[in-house]
Protein backbone atom coordinates (compact mmCIF):
# COMPACT_ATOMS: atom_id res chain seq x y z
CA UNK A 1 0.00 0.00 0.00
CA UNK A 2 2.72 2.40 0.92
CA UNK A 3 4.28 1.89 -2.43
CA UNK A 4 1.36 3.55 -4.16
CA UNK A 5 1.51 6.42 -1.76
CA UNK A 6 2.59 9.57 -3.44
CA UNK A 7 5.06 11.95 -1.88
CA UNK A 8 4.11 15.54 -2.47
CA UNK A 9 6.41 17.37 -4.78
CA UNK A 10 7.76 20.52 -3.31
CA UNK A 11 9.83 22.69 -5.54
CA UNK A 12 13.42 23.10 -4.47
CA UNK A 13 13.20 26.83 -4.94
CA UNK A 14 10.17 28.91 -4.28
CA UNK A 15 8.92 32.05 -5.85
CA UNK A 16 9.96 34.69 -3.40
CA UNK A 17 11.04 37.65 -5.49
CA UNK A 18 13.43 38.86 -2.85
CA UNK A 19 15.58 35.97 -3.73
CA UNK A 20 17.73 37.37 -6.45
CA UNK A 21 20.89 35.57 -5.47
CA UNK A 22 19.24 32.22 -5.72
CA UNK A 23 21.60 31.34 -8.52
CA UNK A 24 24.32 30.84 -5.97
CA UNK A 25 22.34 28.24 -4.18
CA UNK A 26 23.89 25.63 -6.36
CA UNK A 27 27.31 26.53 -5.09
CA UNK A 28 26.29 26.55 -1.46
CA UNK A 29 28.44 24.48 0.81
CA UNK A 30 26.45 22.20 3.02
CA UNK A 31 23.61 20.57 1.12
CA UNK A 32 20.83 19.88 3.61
CA UNK A 33 19.39 23.12 4.95
CA UNK A 34 20.99 22.89 8.38
CA UNK A 35 23.97 20.64 7.83
CA UNK A 36 27.27 22.46 7.62
CA UNK A 37 30.23 21.43 5.53
CA UNK A 38 33.34 20.72 7.56
CA UNK A 39 36.49 22.76 7.02
CA UNK A 40 39.79 23.06 8.80
CA UNK A 41 41.09 26.41 9.85
CA UNK A 42 44.12 27.08 7.71
CA UNK A 43 45.62 29.94 9.66
CA UNK A 44 44.82 32.44 12.37
CA UNK A 45 46.30 35.85 12.98
CA UNK A 46 45.65 38.68 15.40
CA UNK A 47 44.00 41.78 14.02
CA UNK A 48 43.40 43.63 17.29
CA UNK A 49 43.35 42.56 20.93
CA UNK A 50 39.73 41.44 20.40
CA UNK A 51 39.62 40.40 16.78
CA UNK A 52 41.32 37.61 14.93
CA UNK A 53 41.53 36.75 11.27
CA UNK A 54 40.61 33.19 10.35
CA UNK A 55 41.45 31.75 6.96
CA UNK A 56 39.87 28.72 5.33
CA UNK A 57 41.16 27.14 2.13
CA UNK A 58 38.55 26.08 -0.40
CA UNK A 59 39.60 23.07 -2.50
CA UNK A 60 39.39 23.52 -6.27
CA UNK A 61 36.78 20.81 -6.46
CA UNK A 62 34.31 22.95 -4.57
CA UNK A 63 32.54 25.43 -6.76
CA UNK A 64 32.08 28.15 -4.17
CA UNK A 65 30.96 31.53 -5.39
CA UNK A 66 30.00 34.49 -3.31
CA UNK A 67 29.22 38.17 -3.60
CA UNK A 68 30.94 40.88 -1.59
CA UNK A 69 28.94 41.47 1.57
CA UNK A 70 27.54 37.97 1.90
CA UNK A 71 27.99 35.93 5.05
CA UNK A 72 28.26 32.33 6.15
CA UNK A 73 26.81 30.53 9.12
CA UNK A 74 29.88 29.38 10.98
CA UNK A 75 29.59 26.42 13.35
CA UNK A 76 31.80 25.94 16.34
CA UNK A 77 30.98 22.43 17.44
CA UNK A 78 29.19 22.40 20.74
CA UNK A 79 28.68 26.15 20.76
CA UNK A 80 26.27 26.58 17.88
CA UNK A 81 26.34 28.74 14.83
CA UNK A 82 26.90 32.43 14.18
CA UNK A 83 26.61 34.61 11.09
CA UNK A 84 30.04 35.82 9.99
CA UNK A 85 30.76 38.02 7.00
CA UNK A 86 33.10 36.87 4.29
CA UNK A 87 35.90 39.36 4.45
CA UNK A 88 37.62 38.73 1.15
CA UNK A 89 36.45 39.49 -2.34
CA UNK A 90 35.14 36.75 -4.65
CA UNK A 91 37.84 37.87 -7.04
CA UNK A 92 40.42 36.39 -4.68
CA UNK A 93 39.65 32.74 -5.07
CA UNK A 94 40.53 29.56 -3.26
CA UNK A 95 40.13 30.80 0.25
CA UNK A 96 37.81 32.61 2.65
CA UNK A 97 38.76 35.05 5.36
CA UNK A 98 36.76 35.97 8.44
CA UNK A 99 37.56 38.75 10.87
CA UNK A 100 35.93 37.74 14.11
CA UNK A 101 35.51 39.62 17.35
CA UNK A 102 35.45 37.83 20.67
CA UNK A 103 31.88 38.80 21.56
CA UNK A 104 30.56 35.90 23.58
CA UNK A 105 30.55 32.16 24.01
CA UNK A 106 30.81 30.92 20.43
CA UNK A 107 33.29 33.51 19.27
CA UNK A 108 35.18 32.97 22.50
CA UNK A 109 35.51 29.26 21.76
CA UNK A 110 36.59 30.10 18.23
CA UNK A 111 39.32 32.37 19.52
CA UNK A 112 40.68 29.39 21.47
CA UNK A 113 41.07 27.34 18.32
CA UNK A 114 44.31 26.54 16.50
CA UNK A 115 45.07 26.07 12.82
CA UNK A 116 43.80 22.65 11.84
CA UNK A 117 40.76 22.84 14.11
CA UNK A 118 37.55 21.87 12.41
CA UNK A 119 34.69 24.27 11.97
CA UNK A 120 31.47 24.06 9.97
CA UNK A 121 30.25 26.37 7.25
CA UNK A 122 26.91 26.90 5.56
CA UNK A 123 26.39 29.51 2.94
CA UNK A 124 26.97 31.93 1.43
CA UNK A 125 23.84 33.67 2.59
CA UNK A 126 22.36 37.10 2.25
CA UNK A 127 22.21 39.34 -0.76
CA UNK A 128 25.56 41.10 -0.54
CA UNK A 129 26.25 44.55 -1.92
CA UNK A 130 24.43 45.14 -5.17
CA UNK A 131 27.50 45.68 -7.33
CA UNK A 132 25.40 46.50 -10.38
CA UNK A 133 24.07 49.51 -8.60
CA UNK A 134 27.56 50.63 -7.66
CA UNK A 135 29.12 50.35 -11.11
CA UNK A 136 30.19 53.62 -12.75
CA UNK A 137 29.53 55.48 -9.55
CA UNK A 138 31.65 57.48 -7.17
CA UNK A 139 31.74 55.39 -4.05
CA UNK A 140 31.76 56.40 -0.42
CA UNK A 141 32.59 53.25 1.50
CA UNK A 142 32.00 53.92 5.17
CA UNK A 143 32.74 51.48 7.98
CA UNK A 144 32.65 51.71 11.74
CA UNK A 145 34.37 49.18 14.01
CA UNK A 146 33.73 45.59 12.98
CA UNK A 147 31.91 46.86 9.90
CA UNK A 148 35.17 46.81 8.00
CA UNK A 149 34.99 43.01 7.94
CA UNK A 150 32.20 42.81 5.35
CA UNK A 151 33.21 46.06 3.67
CA UNK A 152 36.69 44.76 2.99
CA UNK A 153 35.26 42.24 0.56
CA UNK A 154 33.81 45.11 -1.42
CA UNK A 155 36.97 47.20 -1.15
CA UNK A 156 39.04 44.31 -2.48
CA UNK A 157 36.50 43.81 -5.24
CA UNK A 158 36.82 47.47 -6.21
CA UNK A 159 40.58 47.15 -6.12
CA UNK A 160 40.50 44.15 -8.45
CA UNK A 161 37.90 45.65 -10.80
CA UNK A 162 39.02 49.25 -10.47
CA UNK A 163 37.80 50.25 -13.95
CA UNK A 164 34.20 49.55 -13.13
CA UNK A 165 34.00 52.41 -10.64
CA UNK A 166 34.78 56.11 -10.51
CA UNK A 167 36.31 57.74 -7.43
CA UNK A 168 36.41 55.52 -4.39
CA UNK A 169 36.67 56.97 -0.93
CA UNK A 170 36.99 54.86 2.19
CA UNK A 171 36.04 56.30 5.57
CA UNK A 172 36.79 54.17 8.58
CA UNK A 173 36.34 54.84 12.27
CA UNK A 174 37.24 52.80 15.32
CA UNK A 175 37.33 53.33 19.08
CA UNK A 176 41.10 53.55 19.48
CA UNK A 177 44.09 52.97 17.19
CA UNK A 178 44.36 49.46 18.69
CA UNK A 179 40.88 48.63 17.48
CA UNK A 180 41.56 49.38 13.83
CA UNK A 181 40.99 46.20 11.84
CA UNK A 182 43.26 45.23 8.95
CA UNK A 183 45.99 47.68 9.85
CA UNK A 184 48.28 46.62 7.01
CA UNK A 185 45.47 46.75 4.46
CA UNK A 186 44.59 50.21 5.72
CA UNK A 187 48.16 51.36 5.34
CA UNK A 188 48.24 50.04 1.79
CA UNK A 189 44.92 51.65 0.88
CA UNK A 190 46.11 54.95 2.30
CA UNK A 191 49.27 54.69 0.27
CA UNK A 192 47.66 53.62 -2.96
CA UNK A 193 46.37 55.83 -5.72
CA UNK A 194 43.37 53.57 -6.06
CA UNK A 195 41.53 54.94 -3.05
CA UNK A 196 41.17 57.98 -0.94
CA UNK A 197 41.20 56.35 2.48
CA UNK A 198 40.60 58.30 5.68
CA UNK A 199 40.68 57.04 9.24
CA UNK A 200 39.44 58.43 12.51
CA UNK A 201 39.47 57.12 16.08
CA UNK A 202 37.34 58.09 19.07
CA UNK A 203 40.21 58.53 21.46
CA UNK A 204 43.88 57.83 21.87
CA UNK A 205 45.71 56.79 24.97
CA UNK A 206 48.48 59.20 25.97
CA UNK A 207 51.88 58.41 24.44
CA UNK A 208 50.42 56.32 21.69
CA UNK A 209 52.22 56.77 18.42
CA UNK A 210 49.02 57.49 16.49
CA UNK A 211 49.16 60.70 14.52
CA UNK A 212 45.89 60.56 12.59
CA UNK A 213 42.53 62.15 13.15
CA UNK A 214 40.63 61.90 16.43
CA UNK A 215 36.87 62.23 16.60
CA UNK A 216 33.68 60.51 15.55
CA UNK A 217 33.19 58.89 12.18
CA UNK A 218 30.43 61.24 10.93
CA UNK A 219 32.92 64.12 11.25
CA UNK A 220 34.78 62.79 8.22
CA UNK A 221 31.86 63.51 5.92
CA UNK A 222 31.28 67.29 5.96
CA UNK A 223 34.74 68.17 4.55
CA UNK A 224 34.24 65.89 1.53
CA UNK A 225 33.24 67.15 -1.87
CA UNK A 226 30.44 64.95 -3.06
CA UNK A 227 28.76 64.89 -6.47
CA UNK A 228 25.42 63.78 -5.20
CA UNK A 229 23.98 62.74 -8.55
CA UNK A 230 26.53 60.04 -9.27
CA UNK A 231 27.69 59.01 -5.84
CA UNK A 232 26.52 56.04 -3.83
CA UNK A 233 27.40 55.54 -0.19
CA UNK A 234 27.77 52.15 1.46
CA UNK A 235 27.56 51.98 5.27
CA UNK A 236 28.50 49.17 7.57
CA UNK A 237 28.83 49.61 11.30
CA UNK A 238 27.22 49.52 14.69
CA UNK A 239 23.56 50.58 14.88
CA UNK A 240 24.26 53.75 16.84
CA UNK A 241 26.39 55.05 14.00
CA UNK A 242 23.74 54.98 11.29
CA UNK A 243 21.50 57.92 12.15
CA UNK A 244 24.45 60.32 12.38
CA UNK A 245 26.16 59.15 9.22
CA UNK A 246 22.91 59.09 7.26
CA UNK A 247 22.17 62.59 8.43
CA UNK A 248 25.59 63.79 7.29
CA UNK A 249 25.16 62.10 3.91
CA UNK A 250 21.74 63.60 3.37
CA UNK A 251 23.27 66.99 4.00
CA UNK A 252 25.58 66.21 1.11
CA UNK A 253 22.52 65.72 -1.05
CA UNK A 254 22.47 61.93 -1.18
CA UNK A 255 18.92 60.66 -1.29
CA UNK A 256 17.78 57.34 0.07
CA UNK A 257 18.38 55.59 -3.25
CA UNK A 258 22.03 56.40 -2.97
CA UNK A 259 22.61 55.12 0.51
CA UNK A 260 23.17 51.44 1.01
CA UNK A 261 23.37 50.01 4.51
CA UNK A 262 24.35 46.61 5.79
CA UNK A 263 22.45 45.73 8.94
CA UNK A 264 23.27 43.34 11.72
CA UNK A 265 20.58 41.27 13.34
CA UNK A 266 20.52 38.26 15.60
CA UNK A 267 20.51 35.32 13.16
CA UNK A 268 20.02 31.66 13.76
CA UNK A 269 19.31 30.00 10.43
CA UNK A 270 20.50 32.34 7.70
CA UNK A 271 17.79 31.06 5.37
CA UNK A 272 14.71 33.02 6.30
CA UNK A 273 13.07 30.54 8.65
CA UNK A 274 13.99 31.15 12.26
CA UNK A 275 12.48 34.62 12.51
CA UNK A 276 15.22 36.21 14.59
CA UNK A 277 16.42 38.64 11.99
CA UNK A 278 13.07 40.10 10.99
CA UNK A 279 12.82 43.80 10.22
CA UNK A 280 9.10 44.21 9.70
CA UNK A 281 8.36 42.15 6.60
CA UNK A 282 12.01 41.72 5.65
CA UNK A 283 14.20 38.87 6.79
CA UNK A 284 17.60 40.43 7.17
CA UNK A 285 19.32 37.14 6.31
CA UNK A 286 17.76 36.67 2.88
CA UNK A 287 16.49 40.13 1.93
CA UNK A 288 19.57 41.73 3.46
CA UNK A 289 21.86 42.23 5.22
CA UNK A 290 22.35 44.97 2.61
CA UNK A 291 19.45 47.31 1.97
CA UNK A 292 18.90 50.49 0.06
CA UNK A 293 17.73 53.04 2.56
CA UNK A 294 14.78 53.64 0.25
CA UNK A 295 13.51 50.12 0.78
CA UNK A 296 13.67 50.46 4.53
CA UNK A 297 11.44 53.49 4.65
CA UNK A 298 8.58 53.00 7.06
CA UNK A 299 10.21 50.04 8.75
CA UNK A 300 11.75 49.83 12.17
CA UNK A 301 15.23 49.22 10.77
CA UNK A 302 16.99 51.65 13.04
CA UNK A 303 15.27 50.23 16.15
Amino acid at each position, binding site marked *: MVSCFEKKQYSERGNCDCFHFGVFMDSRIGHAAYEPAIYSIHSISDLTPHEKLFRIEIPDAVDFRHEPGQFVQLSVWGWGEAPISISNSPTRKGYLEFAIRHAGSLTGALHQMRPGSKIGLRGPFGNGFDVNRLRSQNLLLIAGGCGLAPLRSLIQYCEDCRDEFMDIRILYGAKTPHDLLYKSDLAAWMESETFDCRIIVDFVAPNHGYSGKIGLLPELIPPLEVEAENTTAVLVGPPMMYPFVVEALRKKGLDDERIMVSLERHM*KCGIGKC*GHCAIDHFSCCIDGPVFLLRDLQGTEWAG
Partner: protein
Amino acid sequence: MKTITCDQFHHFLYSIREDFEIVGPVILHDGTLSLGRLTAEPLALFAGRIPFRFTSLFFPHSERLFAMSDEYRFDKSGSSAKPLLVVGWRAEDLEALEFIDEFFRTGFRDDVFCDRRQSSVVIGVSGRCGVNGEFCRISEGKCDMELIYDGKHFIMAEYTENGRFLSEKIVWGEETDSLEALLQESRALRTPEREILQTASQLLMRNQVDDDFWAEIADRCIQCTSCTNVCPTCTCFDVYDMRLKRKIERYRMWDSCQMSGFMREASGHNPLASQSDRTRRRIRHKLVDDLHRWGRMTCFLCGRCDDVCPTGIGMKAVAAEIVERFG
Protein backbone atom coordinates in the same frame (compact mmCIF):
# COMPACT_ATOMS: atom_id res chain seq x y z
CA MET B 1 -18.82 11.14 -3.47
CA LYS B 2 -19.18 8.50 -0.82
CA THR B 3 -20.78 8.67 2.62
CA ILE B 4 -19.49 6.69 5.50
CA THR B 5 -20.38 6.43 9.19
CA CYS B 6 -18.00 7.30 11.96
CA ASP B 7 -17.72 3.62 12.90
CA GLN B 8 -16.98 2.61 9.37
CA PHE B 9 -14.34 5.28 9.16
CA HIS B 10 -12.67 3.93 12.27
CA HIS B 11 -12.83 0.41 10.85
CA PHE B 12 -11.06 1.75 7.85
CA LEU B 13 -8.41 3.44 9.99
CA TYR B 14 -7.77 0.23 11.87
CA SER B 15 -7.45 -1.61 8.60
CA ILE B 16 -4.61 0.62 7.43
CA ARG B 17 -2.79 0.79 10.74
CA GLU B 18 0.08 -1.29 9.45
CA ASP B 19 0.80 1.09 6.62
CA PHE B 20 0.31 4.46 8.26
CA GLU B 21 1.10 6.07 11.52
CA ILE B 22 -2.38 7.37 12.34
CA VAL B 23 -2.74 10.46 14.46
CA GLY B 24 -5.87 12.31 15.46
CA PRO B 25 -7.69 14.01 18.33
CA VAL B 26 -7.51 12.04 21.57
CA ILE B 27 -8.43 12.77 25.18
CA LEU B 28 -5.46 12.74 27.53
CA HIS B 29 -5.32 11.57 31.14
CA ASP B 30 -7.02 14.55 32.78
CA GLY B 31 -9.43 15.32 29.97
CA THR B 32 -7.20 17.60 27.89
CA LEU B 33 -7.92 17.30 24.18
CA SER B 34 -4.79 16.65 22.19
CA LEU B 35 -3.31 14.91 19.20
CA GLY B 36 -2.26 11.35 19.66
CA ARG B 37 -1.84 7.96 18.05
CA LEU B 38 -4.93 5.98 17.27
CA THR B 39 -5.53 3.47 20.04
CA ALA B 40 -8.40 1.12 20.83
CA GLU B 41 -10.42 4.24 21.72
CA PRO B 42 -12.04 5.95 18.77
CA LEU B 43 -10.67 9.37 17.84
CA ALA B 44 -12.38 12.35 19.46
CA LEU B 45 -13.51 13.80 16.17
CA PHE B 46 -16.37 15.78 17.71
CA ALA B 47 -14.61 17.16 20.77
CA GLY B 48 -13.83 20.55 19.28
CA ARG B 49 -10.61 22.25 18.34
CA ILE B 50 -7.34 20.84 19.59
CA PRO B 51 -6.05 23.54 21.95
CA PHE B 52 -2.38 22.86 21.39
CA ARG B 53 -0.32 23.79 18.34
CA PHE B 54 -1.33 20.92 16.08
CA THR B 55 1.38 21.76 13.55
CA SER B 56 3.78 20.40 16.17
CA LEU B 57 3.39 17.10 14.34
CA PHE B 58 5.59 18.50 11.60
CA PHE B 59 7.38 21.18 13.57
CA PRO B 60 7.80 19.81 17.10
CA HIS B 61 8.61 21.74 20.26
CA SER B 62 12.20 20.60 20.01
CA GLU B 63 13.93 18.33 17.54
CA ARG B 64 17.39 17.18 16.73
CA LEU B 65 18.74 18.54 13.47
CA PHE B 66 21.72 16.25 13.50
CA ALA B 67 24.32 14.67 15.69
CA MET B 68 27.98 14.79 14.88
CA SER B 69 30.52 12.35 16.19
CA ASP B 70 34.10 12.96 17.23
CA GLU B 71 35.13 12.00 13.75
CA TYR B 72 32.95 14.72 12.24
CA ARG B 73 30.43 12.27 10.89
CA PHE B 74 26.82 13.35 10.67
CA ASP B 75 23.88 11.39 11.84
CA LYS B 76 20.55 12.88 10.83
CA SER B 77 17.62 12.08 13.04
CA GLY B 78 15.93 9.09 11.52
CA SER B 79 12.52 9.77 10.06
CA SER B 80 9.80 7.31 10.86
CA ALA B 81 9.42 4.54 8.32
CA LYS B 82 5.69 4.89 7.94
CA PRO B 83 3.90 7.80 6.35
CA LEU B 84 1.81 9.86 8.71
CA LEU B 85 -1.94 10.04 8.41
CA VAL B 86 -3.45 12.93 10.29
CA VAL B 87 -7.17 13.13 10.92
CA GLY B 88 -9.38 15.76 12.39
CA TRP B 89 -8.12 19.22 11.55
CA ARG B 90 -10.55 22.09 11.02
CA ALA B 91 -10.70 24.58 8.18
CA GLU B 92 -8.74 27.29 10.09
CA ASP B 93 -6.16 24.69 11.00
CA LEU B 94 -5.82 23.66 7.39
CA GLU B 95 -5.37 27.26 6.30
CA ALA B 96 -2.62 27.64 8.85
CA LEU B 97 -1.02 24.44 7.63
CA GLU B 98 -1.18 25.63 4.06
CA PHE B 99 0.63 28.77 5.08
CA ILE B 100 3.42 27.10 6.98
CA ASP B 101 3.85 24.63 4.13
CA GLU B 102 4.45 27.57 1.88
CA PHE B 103 6.64 29.27 4.43
CA PHE B 104 8.97 26.35 4.95
CA ARG B 105 9.38 25.44 1.30
CA THR B 106 9.71 28.90 -0.19
CA GLY B 107 13.18 30.25 -0.82
CA PHE B 108 15.54 27.89 0.87
CA ARG B 109 13.67 24.69 1.45
CA ASP B 110 13.56 23.68 5.09
CA ASP B 111 14.23 20.00 4.51
CA VAL B 112 13.59 19.05 8.14
CA PHE B 113 10.01 20.24 7.95
CA CYS B 114 9.35 19.45 4.32
CA ASP B 115 10.64 15.89 4.44
CA ARG B 116 8.34 15.10 7.31
CA ARG B 117 5.43 16.93 5.78
CA GLN B 118 5.88 15.38 2.38
CA SER B 119 5.20 11.88 3.55
CA SER B 120 1.95 12.70 5.25
CA VAL B 121 -1.71 12.66 4.40
CA VAL B 122 -4.08 15.10 6.05
CA ILE B 123 -7.78 14.46 6.49
CA GLY B 124 -9.84 17.46 7.56
CA VAL B 125 -13.12 17.28 9.41
CA SER B 126 -15.91 19.82 8.96
CA GLY B 127 -19.65 20.23 8.76
CA ARG B 128 -21.89 19.63 11.76
CA CYS B 129 -19.03 18.35 13.85
CA GLY B 130 -18.81 20.99 16.59
CA VAL B 131 -18.99 20.00 20.26
CA ASN B 132 -22.73 20.79 20.28
CA GLY B 133 -23.29 19.99 16.64
CA GLU B 134 -22.38 23.50 15.46
CA PHE B 135 -21.39 23.91 11.88
CA CYS B 136 -17.68 24.04 11.19
CA ARG B 137 -16.60 25.67 7.98
CA ILE B 138 -15.68 23.41 5.08
CA SER B 139 -12.12 24.00 3.89
CA GLU B 140 -12.92 23.06 0.28
CA GLY B 141 -9.54 21.77 -0.68
CA LYS B 142 -6.76 22.55 1.74
CA CYS B 143 -6.15 18.90 2.61
CA ASP B 144 -5.97 15.52 0.95
CA MET B 145 -9.42 14.53 1.97
CA GLU B 146 -12.17 16.16 3.95
CA LEU B 147 -14.82 14.41 6.01
CA ILE B 148 -17.89 16.59 6.01
CA TYR B 149 -20.36 15.64 8.69
CA ASP B 150 -24.02 16.04 7.87
CA GLY B 151 -25.24 15.08 11.33
CA LYS B 152 -25.26 11.34 10.63
CA HIS B 153 -22.55 10.51 8.16
CA PHE B 154 -19.29 11.80 6.86
CA ILE B 155 -19.34 12.78 3.24
CA MET B 156 -15.89 12.20 1.85
CA ALA B 157 -14.47 14.87 -0.40
CA GLU B 158 -11.15 13.89 -1.98
CA TYR B 159 -8.95 16.72 -3.10
CA THR B 160 -5.65 15.09 -4.05
CA GLU B 161 -4.25 11.91 -5.51
CA ASN B 162 -3.51 10.69 -2.01
CA GLY B 163 -7.05 11.45 -0.95
CA ARG B 164 -8.48 9.52 -3.88
CA PHE B 165 -6.07 6.70 -3.21
CA LEU B 166 -7.35 6.41 0.35
CA SER B 167 -10.95 6.75 -0.63
CA GLU B 168 -10.65 3.88 -3.06
CA LYS B 169 -9.55 1.68 -0.21
CA ILE B 170 -12.80 2.33 1.60
CA VAL B 171 -15.17 -0.44 0.68
CA TRP B 172 -18.13 0.73 2.73
CA GLY B 173 -20.47 3.58 2.17
CA GLU B 174 -22.87 4.77 -0.49
CA GLU B 175 -22.57 7.29 -3.22
CA THR B 176 -24.19 10.63 -2.57
CA ASP B 177 -24.39 14.05 -4.16
CA SER B 178 -25.93 15.89 -1.25
CA LEU B 179 -22.88 18.05 -0.55
CA GLU B 180 -24.23 21.17 -2.22
CA ALA B 181 -26.51 22.17 0.64
CA LEU B 182 -23.72 21.81 3.17
CA LEU B 183 -21.38 23.82 1.01
CA GLN B 184 -23.90 26.62 0.81
CA GLU B 185 -24.33 26.58 4.53
CA SER B 186 -20.59 26.73 4.96
CA ARG B 187 -20.15 29.64 2.57
CA ALA B 188 -22.95 31.54 4.24
CA LEU B 189 -21.25 31.41 7.64
CA ARG B 190 -20.71 34.96 8.87
CA THR B 191 -17.27 35.80 10.14
CA PRO B 192 -17.48 39.12 11.96
CA GLU B 193 -14.11 38.41 13.58
CA ARG B 194 -12.45 38.40 10.19
CA GLU B 195 -13.78 41.84 9.53
CA ILE B 196 -12.45 43.11 12.83
CA LEU B 197 -9.09 41.63 12.01
CA GLN B 198 -9.06 43.28 8.61
CA THR B 199 -9.99 46.64 10.08
CA ALA B 200 -7.29 46.30 12.69
CA SER B 201 -4.82 45.39 9.98
CA GLN B 202 -5.68 48.52 8.02
CA LEU B 203 -5.42 50.72 11.08
CA LEU B 204 -2.01 49.29 11.82
CA MET B 205 -0.91 49.70 8.26
CA ARG B 206 -1.87 53.34 8.34
CA ASN B 207 0.04 53.76 11.59
CA GLN B 208 -3.04 54.85 13.44
CA VAL B 209 -2.27 52.91 16.58
CA ASP B 210 -0.16 54.91 19.00
CA ASP B 211 2.70 53.86 21.24
CA ASP B 212 0.70 54.38 24.41
CA PHE B 213 -1.65 51.66 23.30
CA TRP B 214 1.17 49.17 22.97
CA ALA B 215 2.69 50.19 26.28
CA GLU B 216 -0.63 49.59 27.95
CA ILE B 217 -1.09 46.15 26.42
CA ALA B 218 2.54 45.30 27.13
CA ASP B 219 2.17 46.07 30.83
CA ARG B 220 -0.25 43.18 30.96
CA CYS B 221 2.01 40.68 29.26
CA ILE B 222 3.74 38.40 31.73
CA GLN B 223 5.93 36.91 29.02
CA CYS B 224 4.66 33.41 29.48
CA THR B 225 5.17 32.77 25.74
CA SER B 226 2.05 30.64 25.64
CA CYS B 227 0.59 32.63 22.74
CA THR B 228 3.55 32.06 20.47
CA ASN B 229 3.82 28.43 21.54
CA VAL B 230 0.25 27.49 20.68
CA CYS B 231 -0.07 29.54 17.50
CA PRO B 232 -0.04 27.26 14.46
CA THR B 233 1.52 29.91 12.22
CA CYS B 234 4.28 30.95 14.61
CA THR B 235 7.37 29.37 13.14
CA CYS B 236 10.24 31.03 14.99
CA PHE B 237 12.85 28.74 16.41
CA ASP B 238 16.15 28.80 18.19
CA VAL B 239 19.11 26.59 17.33
CA TYR B 240 21.52 25.32 19.94
CA ASP B 241 24.11 22.64 20.54
CA MET B 242 24.35 20.05 23.29
CA ARG B 243 27.84 18.82 24.11
CA LEU B 244 27.69 15.15 24.93
CA LYS B 245 30.57 12.82 25.68
CA ARG B 246 31.67 11.75 22.26
CA LYS B 247 29.46 13.86 20.07
CA ILE B 248 27.58 17.05 19.77
CA GLU B 249 23.94 17.32 18.92
CA ARG B 250 22.33 20.31 17.26
CA TYR B 251 18.70 20.98 18.10
CA ARG B 252 16.12 23.45 17.19
CA MET B 253 13.23 24.40 19.40
CA TRP B 254 10.34 26.83 19.39
CA ASP B 255 11.35 30.34 20.23
CA SER B 256 9.22 33.30 21.17
CA CYS B 257 9.41 36.90 20.04
CA GLN B 258 7.95 37.79 23.43
CA MET B 259 11.31 37.24 25.09
CA SER B 260 13.83 40.03 25.19
CA GLY B 261 16.68 37.71 24.22
CA PHE B 262 14.94 36.86 20.97
CA MET B 263 16.60 39.59 18.92
CA ARG B 264 19.29 40.77 21.30
CA GLU B 265 22.65 40.72 19.53
CA ALA B 266 25.98 39.94 21.06
CA SER B 267 26.74 43.66 21.04
CA GLY B 268 23.78 44.21 23.37
CA HIS B 269 21.83 46.04 20.66
CA ASN B 270 18.23 44.89 20.69
CA PRO B 271 15.63 45.93 18.11
CA LEU B 272 12.90 44.47 20.35
CA ALA B 273 14.20 45.79 23.63
CA SER B 274 10.95 46.75 25.31
CA GLN B 275 7.90 44.63 25.91
CA SER B 276 5.81 47.12 24.01
CA ASP B 277 8.04 46.64 20.95
CA ARG B 278 7.55 42.93 21.32
CA THR B 279 3.81 43.07 21.78
CA ARG B 280 3.53 45.31 18.76
CA ARG B 281 5.59 42.89 16.73
CA ARG B 282 3.44 39.92 17.78
CA ILE B 283 0.34 41.59 16.38
CA ARG B 284 1.81 43.53 13.45
CA HIS B 285 3.74 40.57 12.17
CA LYS B 286 0.58 38.61 11.47
CA LEU B 287 -1.67 41.45 10.41
CA VAL B 288 0.69 43.70 8.46
CA ASP B 289 4.12 42.28 7.76
CA ASP B 290 2.93 38.91 6.51
CA LEU B 291 0.35 40.65 4.38
CA HIS B 292 3.24 42.44 2.67
CA ARG B 293 5.39 39.41 2.36
CA TRP B 294 2.98 36.54 1.81
CA GLY B 295 -0.01 38.35 0.43
CA ARG B 296 -2.26 37.44 3.33
CA MET B 297 -2.68 37.92 7.02
CA THR B 298 -1.40 34.89 8.84
CA CYS B 299 -3.83 34.90 11.70
CA PHE B 300 -6.57 32.48 10.73
CA LEU B 301 -8.64 33.26 13.81
CA CYS B 302 -8.27 29.85 15.36
CA GLY B 303 -8.48 31.52 18.78
CA ARG B 304 -5.76 29.49 20.48
CA CYS B 305 -3.74 32.47 21.72
CA ASP B 306 -6.85 34.12 23.13
CA ASP B 307 -7.71 30.93 24.97
CA VAL B 308 -4.31 30.56 26.57
CA CYS B 309 -3.31 34.15 27.32
CA PRO B 310 -3.52 34.43 31.10
CA THR B 311 -4.13 38.16 30.94
CA GLY B 312 -6.52 38.38 28.03
CA ILE B 313 -4.38 39.95 25.33
CA GLY B 314 -4.54 37.35 22.57
CA MET B 315 -4.88 38.32 18.93
CA LYS B 316 -8.65 38.64 18.79
CA ALA B 317 -8.78 40.64 22.01
CA VAL B 318 -6.10 43.07 20.90
CA ALA B 319 -7.57 43.43 17.41
CA ALA B 320 -10.97 44.18 18.89
CA GLU B 321 -9.45 46.76 21.19
CA ILE B 322 -7.60 48.41 18.31
CA VAL B 323 -10.78 48.69 16.31
CA GLU B 324 -12.73 49.98 19.28
CA ARG B 325 -10.21 52.67 20.13
CA PHE B 326 -8.84 53.73 16.80
CA GLY B 327 -11.43 52.54 14.29
